[in-house]
């Protein structure tokens, strides 16, 4: 396919503009705002048109319209004149405004409309002649600046572009990503048995649950049916038992009525035998006979009164009253008095003992006014003077004793400071002698010792005397206390009596009162006993009188005449016994009449014969009522059964059976009701199960579809890659040396991954990934691949025009030139339209594209008012 011309009648900012193209390389040069993008879009719109569909347009269609619909008029039209390989020239008119007036006209056939062969979504799509469509054509035939950039920036972009292009013509996605998408879908929307939160596992669990519920529901229904049968049988038994009870009741009523009829006949007969009413009977004087028997018995067991003797009640009362004045006084020593006395005895004894322990006195000593210390001092002085062996042990002991005693008395014995002179000793001896004191050391020592012993005895005596005084005070106090306590107890004590006498008087009074109280108790017992004896005597007298009176009264009643109730009682008793014997003998004659009479009365039971008749009538009526509705055979059987056994027992047995049957029916009714209340609806459970099972079936089918789709996808990918890999390899291989300046000559396209590798020498050297080549080489290899793909993807024998958008913009001058020259070479087999804004491209084109089959087109800037992207 060659594009000869694009006419933009109304497209974006263009009005009646056109752009003609040569069959070779077309360089469309223009600065920014010259309309390159608009012409680019116009080419696609003119060739492929837009889909015509109801409802909301797709996003891409809406964005295309927003960008390229003329702003100032309703019309939106673009057309193209193309030439196909078979030589036909076609004008493709696209009225994008209404999408109705669109058609493809074969200019060589007088304007024949050939739209029908290329209709796509309601409008002609000329790219279909290439085996493409309006979605796949741009991906196949157009290379943008951005794509070149991505190849240069990303190592795997080249491979991805290849994989996308090979996956599908629109190059939406690679087969690998499609497979990933399928796997992801299967994982998320279906899942496996091992994924408990995924739909398939959940659905299976739901089926299992629903199946269990259904089984339970069915089991419950089966249980219900079983119990239902039991209920039915139980009700039958109950009905049968009730019928039986009714039959027995009717039978009993019939028997009762029959019995009453018989009784009525008896009454009728017996009443004839007693026209005057009740016959004589033993019952007539039965009560009198019973009284007589009782009276005789009592009389024979009567008491025999004995009058009491000894002190009378009055005597005893007087004695008792005489002793009662003592009440309220102490009959034994009160504890408070006893405590006071004990205290008095204790302190008195202590005083007596103390007096016995009076200390002995020592004779007094005349020291002539000298103290014990003075005496000892004299002794020492004398001892030093004589230097006699008075300083022996004994002397030292005596001195020590004297000092100890001096200390005890609080006096200080001054030691001799120095030896006194003999004159002083003589003076001392004189002084001693003059004062009548001994003049020898021993005499002085003895005198000092006697003086000390006397002082000590005086001290002991003073202490003893003080203790005597204290004890005497205590004795006096205890004596007062004892006296006071005795008086407090109400004792009468003479004023002159001391405490001991008061105590003795009180104690004696207590003992006397104790004896009186004991005597009063004995008197009261005797008084009580006397009263009892006198009472018994009076009662016995009364009883004998009463029993005798009864004997006399009964004797009168039986016709024995009055008698002295006391004197003649024993006689009357004998007569009454005779009367008893006579009566017993005469009673046998009336017993037969009495029996009949008794029978009659028993039947009548207080009723009149009319009333008995009424009862019979009612019994017959009731019997008829109860027999109504009762099967006659059952009634006969019940009557037979009633005859053969105790009617009451039989009836109770039948009633018990009926009760038991009713209870059983009631129990089963309740069981059935419970089952009914808790029953799960079987159809509902079945519906739930089928719904769950349908979901599982659906997911399994979906899983199968996804699995098979993946299998087909893998297989198709392998095959497509295997097919295209050698084509790409051959296409690039033919041109690799040229675009790499002979550096690389050999190319390999991996059929599995479509990874492109190159090496310097065939059969040797290291394979290098094409993505790792220099940018210039990589972009050329990429363009080669795209053109190779375009050749491959377009349906033969057509060849698609290649439309390039500023693909050299990232290249330096050298690379740009290399690309342009490569494109010019490729343009011998493909129409190539290169949009560029680069000056050097324009310069190259002007000098290199000097004539057919190539063309240089220079666009001018669109006026600002109508400028578009």
């Amino acid at each position, binding site marked *: 396919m060659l594009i000869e011309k694009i006419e933009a009648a109304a497209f974006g900012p263009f009005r009646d503009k056109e752009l003609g193209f040569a069959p070779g390389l077309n360089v469309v040069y223009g600065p920014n705002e010259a309309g390159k993008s608009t012409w680019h879009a116009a080419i696609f719109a003119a060739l492929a048109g837009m889909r015509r569909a*109801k409802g909301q347009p*797709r996003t891409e269609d809406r964005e295309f319209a927003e960008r390229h619909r003329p702003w100032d008029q309703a019309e939106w039209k673009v057309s193209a004149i193309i030439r196909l390989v078979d030589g036909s020239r076609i004008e493709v008119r696209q009225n994008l405004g209404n999408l109705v007036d669109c058609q493809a006209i074969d200019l060589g056939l007088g304007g024949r409309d050939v739209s029908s062969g290329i209709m*796509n979504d309601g409008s002609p799509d000329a790219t279909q002649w290439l085996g493409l469509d309006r979605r796949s054509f741009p991906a196949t035939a157009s290379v943008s600046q951005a794509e070149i950039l991505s190849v240069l920036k990303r190592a795997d972009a080249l491979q991805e572009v290849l994989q996308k292009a*090979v*996956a*599908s*013509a629109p190059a939406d996605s690679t087969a690998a990503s499609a497979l990933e998408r399928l796997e992801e879908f299967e994982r998320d*929307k279906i899942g496996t048995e091992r994924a408990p939160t995924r739909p398939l596992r959940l659905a299976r669990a739901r089926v299992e649950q629903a199946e269990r519920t259904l089984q339970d529901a069915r089991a419950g229904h089966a249980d219900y049916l079983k119990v239902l049968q039991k209920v039915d049988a139980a009700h039958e038994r109950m009905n049968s038992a009730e019928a039986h009870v009714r039959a027995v009741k009717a039978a009993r009523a019939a028997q009762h009525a029959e019995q009453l009829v018989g009784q009525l006949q008896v009454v009728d007969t017996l009443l004839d035998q007693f026209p005057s009413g009740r016959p004589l009977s033993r019952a007539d004087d039965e009560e009198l006979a019973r009284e007589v028997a009782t009276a005789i018995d009592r009389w024979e067991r009567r008491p025999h009164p004995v009058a009491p003797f000894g002190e009378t009640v009055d005597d005893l009362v007087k004695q008792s009253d005489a002793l009662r004045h003592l009440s309220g006084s102490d009959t034994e020593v009160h504890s408070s008095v006893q405590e006071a006395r004990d205290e008095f005895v204790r302190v008195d004894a202590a005083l007596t003992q103390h007096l016995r322990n009076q200390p002995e006195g020592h004779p007094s000593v005349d020291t002539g006014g000298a103290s014990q210390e003075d005496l000892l001092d004299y002794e020492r002085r004398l001892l030093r003077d004589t230097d006699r062996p008075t300083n022996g042990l004994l002397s030292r002991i005596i001195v020590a004793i004297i000092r100890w005693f001096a200390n005890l008395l609080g006096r200080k014995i001054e030691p001799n400071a120095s030896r006194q002179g003999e004159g002083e000793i003589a003076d001392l001896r004189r002084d001693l002698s003059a004062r009548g004191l001994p003049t020898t050391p021993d005499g002085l020592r003895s005198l000092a010792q006697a003086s000390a012993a006397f002082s000590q005895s005086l001290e002991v005596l003073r202490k003893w005397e003080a203790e005597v005084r204290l004890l005497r005070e205590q004795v006096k106090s205890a004596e007062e206390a004892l006296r006071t306590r005795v008086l407090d107890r109400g004792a009468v004590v003479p004023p002159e009596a001391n405490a001991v006498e008061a105590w003795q008087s009180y104690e004696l009074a207590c003992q006397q009162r104790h004896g009186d109280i004991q005597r009063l108790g004995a008197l009261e017992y005797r008084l009580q006993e006397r009263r009892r004896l006198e009472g018994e005597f009076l009662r016995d007298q009364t009883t004998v009188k009463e029993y005798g009176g009864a004997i006399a009264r009964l004797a009168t009643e039986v016709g024995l005449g009055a008698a002295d109730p006391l004197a003649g009682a024993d006689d009357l008793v004998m007569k009454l016994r005779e009367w008893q014997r006579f009566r017993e003998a005469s009673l046998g004659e009336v017993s037969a009449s009495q029996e009949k009479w008794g029978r009659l009365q028993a039947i009548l039971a207080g009723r009149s014969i009319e009333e008995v008749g009424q009862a019979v009538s009612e019994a017959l009526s009731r019997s008829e009522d109860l027999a109504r509705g009762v099967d006659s055979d059952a009634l006969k059987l019940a009557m037979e059964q009633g005859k053969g056994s105790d009617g009451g027992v039989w009836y109770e047995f039948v009633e018990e059976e009926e009760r038991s049957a009713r209870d059983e029916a009631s129990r089963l009714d309740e069981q059935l009701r419970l089952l009914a209340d808790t029953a799960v609806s079987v159809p509902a459970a*079945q519906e739930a199960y089928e719904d769950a099972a349908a979901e599982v079936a659906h997911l399994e089918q979906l899983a199968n579809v*996804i699995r098979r789709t993946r299998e087909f996808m893998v297989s198709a990918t392998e095959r497509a890659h295997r097919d295209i890999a050698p084509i790409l390899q051959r296409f690039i291989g033919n041109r690799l040396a040229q675009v790499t300046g002979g550096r690389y000559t050999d190319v390999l396209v991996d059929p599995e991954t479509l990874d492109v590798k190159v090496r310097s020498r065939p059969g040797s050297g290291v394979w290098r990934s094409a993505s790792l080549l220099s940018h210039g080489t990589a972009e050329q290899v990429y363009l080669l691949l795209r053109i190779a793909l375009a050749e491959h993807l377009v349906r033969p024998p057509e060849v698609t025009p290649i439309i390039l958008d500023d693909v050299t913009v990232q290249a330096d001058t050298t690379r740009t030139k290399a690309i342009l020259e490569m494109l010019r070479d490729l343009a011998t087999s493909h129409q190539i339209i290169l949009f560029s804004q680069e000056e050097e491209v324009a310069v190259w084109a002007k000098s290199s594209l000097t004539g057919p089959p190539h063309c240089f087109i220079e666009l001018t800037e669109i006026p600002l008012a109508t400028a578009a992207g």
Partner: protein
Amino acid sequence: MKVIHFSDLHLDAPFAWMGATSDVARERRNAQRKVLQKIADMAVTEEVDAIFCGGDLYEQDLFTPDTSAFLVQVFRDISPVQVFFAPGNHDWFGPGSIYATARWSDNVHVFTESHLEAVRLDDGLTLWGAAHRAPANTRGFLDGFHVVGTGVHVALFHGAEAGSLHFEADGKQPHAPFQEAQIRTSGLRHAFLGHYHRSRDSDWLTYPGNPEPLTFGEEGERGAVLATIQPDGTIIRERKHVAATSVFDVDIDVSGSDSSSDVIEKVRQVLETKEGVLRVTISGEVAAEVDFRVRDLDNIRPLRVPAWQVNLRLGYRYDLEGIAKEPTVRGEFVREVRDSTLDSATKRRILLTGLRALEGRSDLEVP
């Protein structure tokens, strides 16, 4: 004598077939009860002498205690109208059946034997009836049978007229099979029957059909039959529509839809005028991009449509012929799938799934 004859009500049948939720299914079962109530009411208003039920009144394996109570109540309320039941293979007579255990009122008579038994009706008319006593393998009631006594004899039972098997190919087993000719040769003047859900009348027999729809696609007039049995045995019939539910098939063409919204809108427009239980079939070719699923319709089901079953027969506008020519994975994929031995439905699903995956779409589930 004037009677109402009906059969095959199938109380307590499950309704999973309609994709009904539990509430809707319950509502369907309630509708079945309404039908029975209508028949009972009609018996009173038409002053009939009796109601004949030709079996399959309920589902023995599924019935609820409530159903038993309901049946007793309905027929007790129309006393003294006589009611005759001839249990069928779904409600076969057994010790656990409603027939055996319910406390029927005196106006109800259940045929309980597996051979025809006679009940003397008015005016020299004798009704012969029998019961299925098992869910299967019931022999023909008319085999070796001949009426006894004078007057007009009619029969009531649940059985498959063998000559009718061709007219209802619904997979039913020949329960209690018989030939129409046996009716005449046995001395019967007419047979009131149950079993076939499609109605059928002839001089010798009456199949009333199921009075309430049980599934989709039930064509023809069905319901209760108001029949007058003439003294000479001829029957005057009048069909009575008693269904509480209408069931319809609705086909909706959504061709040309470019989005699921288009599809939903087209379905909504059609459903505006519909009511009853529907089986909706949505068909037509839509754009390849359309991602439509049945549950998209959940919000547009009219209240007048208590339940529906939606079937999708959508085609998607892929140029499979063109794609198959592509020298791409996509083309190879289409070619391989089309060349496979899979069934056409599976092929279609795999093709659409694969193409959508290649387009980068996530709606890979194809209805």
